[in-house]
C-alpha cells in the first residue's frame, strides 16, 4: 500500500483509442461511427448524408454505389454487416421534391451486435442496383419493394409481383399518391336492402 502511495504515477502515455470500441457505434457524434468512418475513407463522396436519431444510424449513399457499399460492409472484417435484416422503400412524395423514393436497408452485424440503416435515394423511373448478388435474402424483399413501389432493381434475377397478382394493373399501392381504396370503382354490395327487415326481439328469451 505504502509503495503505491509513494511511487510517482508515470506520465499517462497517449494510448491510441481502439478504433473498433463498441461505444463508438453509439457515440453522439455520428462521424465517429466506425461504419461512417470506413465508408468515407473508402468511398469518399458516395456518402451523401449521415443521420443519427434515437440511437439509430442512417447512412445515405448514392444509389449507383449501393451494391458496392453493401458488399463492402458485408465483407469488411471488422464491421461484418453479414445480415440483411430488411429491405424496403419509402415514398418521400410529401417530404421532399427529389429524389422521390428511398430504398432502405436494415443491416445487422452479428459480430458487433449493432444495426445500421442504409438509404439510397432513387427517382421515379430510375433503377437501383439489386443487392441479390450480395445477399440472397434480398430476393423476395426486392420483389416486394418493386411490387409495392414500382422501383426497378437492376440485375434482379426474377423481378415480378410478390404479393399482388401478376395481372395487377392498378399501379403500385404503397405510393403516396395511390388512394387507400384503389383507383378503380368497385361495385358496392348490398347497399339497398332487397329483403325487408323484420324487427326481432333479442331479449334472450326467444320470440
Amino acid at each position, binding site marked *: 500500500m505504502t509503495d503505491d502511495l509513494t511511487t510517482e504515477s508515470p506520465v499517462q502515455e497517449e494510448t491510441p483509442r481502439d478504433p473498433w470500441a463498441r461505444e463508438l457505434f453509439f457515440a453522439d457524434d455520428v462521424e465517429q461511427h466506425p461504419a461512417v468512418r470506413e465508408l468515407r475513407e473508402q468511398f469518399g463522396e458516395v456518402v451523401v448524408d449521415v443521420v443519427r436519431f434515437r440511437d439509430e444510424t442512417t447512412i445515405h449513399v448514392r444509389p449507383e454505389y449501393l451494391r458496392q457499399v453493401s458488399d463492402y460492409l458485408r465483407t469488411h472484417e471488422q464491421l461484418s454487416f453479414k445480415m440483411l435484416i430488411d429491405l424496403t422503400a419509402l415514398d418521400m412524395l410529401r417530404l421532399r421534391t427529389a429524389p422521390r423514393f428511398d430504398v432502405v436497408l436494415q443491416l445487422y452485424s452479428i459480430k458487433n451486435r449493432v444495426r445500421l440503416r442504409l438509404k439510397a435515394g432513387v427517382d421515379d423511373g430510375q433503377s437501383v442496383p439489386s443487392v441479390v448478388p450480395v445477399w440472397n435474402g434480398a430476393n*423476395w424483399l426486392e420483389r416486394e419493394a418493386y411490387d409495392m413501389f414500382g422501383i426497378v432493381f437492376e440485375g434482379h434475377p426474377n423481378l415480378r409481383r*410478390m404479393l399482388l397478382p401478376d395481372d395487377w394493373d392498378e399501379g403500385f399501392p404503397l405510393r403516396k399518391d395511390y388512394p387507400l381504396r384503389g383507383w378503380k370503382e368497385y361495385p358496392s354490395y348490398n347497399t339497398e336492402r332487397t329483403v325487408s327487415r323484420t324487427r326481432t326481439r333479442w331479449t334472450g328469451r326467444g320470440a
Partner: protein
Amino acid sequence: MSSTVAQPGTDGMPVFAEDMPPTGTYTISDEVAINESERLLTLNMGPQHPSTHGVLRVVLKLEGEVILDCDPIIGYLHRGVEKLGESHRYAQVVPWTDRTDYVAAPMNNLGCVMAFEKLCGVESPERAQYWRVIMSELSRIASHLVWLGTHALDIGALSMSLYCFRERELILDVFEAFCGARLTTNMMEIGGFSRPIPDGLIPQIREFLRVFPDRQKEYDDLLTANPIWLARTKDVGVIPAETAIDYSLTGACLRGSGVNYDIRKAMPYLVYDRLEFDVPLGTKGDVYDRYLVRMEEMRQAIRIITQCVDAVERMDTPLMAYESEYVIPPHKGTMTTAEDMQRHFVWVIKGISPPVGEAYAAVEHPKGENGYYVVSDGSSIPYRFRVRSPDFVNLGVLSHLAKGAMLADVVALIGTIDIVLGSVDR
C-alpha cells in the same frame, strides 16, 4: 398424313393415338427422348392444401419424385396492413398487427408499440415491462404449440395436434382473462397498460406453469426418439450456417443452424437483461435440430415466465407511463369534470403526434425477428409503417431447400420454417 402430325410450333408432337407411329419402330430410349417435356411434371400444391398452413401455393416441377424447381406463390391473404397503417392514427394501428401473425398476437402488438415508443421517447414502467414479457413468452409457447401440432400432423403424428391444442387453450384462457380476447388480443398500449391486472390472473398463470412441463414431457416422449419422426426429420432440409445468414433467416431457422442471434440476448429489450435463460442452438441445421431448438425454447419460456411472475407478484407500481406527453391520460376524471372530458375527447380524436424522425424496433418473435419500421412526419398518422415479418423472409429459403428434395419432404420443409400466412402476406 405427316403434315397433320407435325404442326409448326408444336414440336411435332402427336396429339392423338392414331397419329402415333406404329409400335416397334422406335426403342424406349427414343420415347424418353421424344417425351422429354412430358417426363417433367408440374404440380400445383395449394393454395387450399391443408399442409401448406393456410393459403400458400407452391408450384413444383417434378421429375418422378424429385423436385427440380419450386416456386412459392404468396399473397392470397394480402390485406395491405402497411397501407392501412399509413392511414390510421398511431393507437389505431396496433390492432392491425394482431391480424398479421394471429397465433402470437401479443408479440406483434409488442413490436409495434415498441417502435412507437421508441419514436416518441416513451419508456413503459417496470411493472408493465414484466407483464409484457410474461405475455410475450406465453404467446411464444402458444405459437410453438401450434407449430408443433401442425408440423407433426403433416409428417404423420396425428395425436400431437390434439395434445398441443389442448395446452394452447390454457394460454388462450390467460389471454382472455387478461384482456378479454383470445386471438386478436390488442393487448399492448403506448406507455404500458391502462387497465389493472385482473385478480385471479397470477394463480391462473402459476397453474399453467405447474401443468405444462409434464405435458411437454409427453410430447418429448412421443416424438424425440420416435424412429418414424427421426426418419422424416433427420438430415432433411439442412441449412448450413452461411446459407442461413445469406438468406436473412432469423429465429429458430437461424439458431437451428448454430448461429447465435437472439434479440433478447444480443440487444436486450424490456427486462430481458435481468432474466436468466439460455438460447438453444442446433448443430447441423436440419428439421430435427429446429424441432429440438423450439422444444427447448418452450422450456426456457417457462423459466422466464416463472421469474417474471415471482418478480411481479408483490409489485404495486404503476402500469402506465402517464407522465409522458405521448400517453393518453387516465380515464378517471372524464365522467365528473367537463374539462377532463374535453381533454380526453381531444386526445382520443386527435391522437398523438410523435416528433419527426424514424425508428426501427424489433422483438424476438416465435418465428424470428419481427421488426417495425416507422417514419413520422410530425402528424398523427404514421408516414410509413413497415412490418418486417419473420416468416415472409424465412419462406424465401424454401425454393432453395426444396431443390433436389423429395416431394414428401416439402410438407416437412414448409412445417419447419413455421409460417403463418397472415404474417407472410400481411
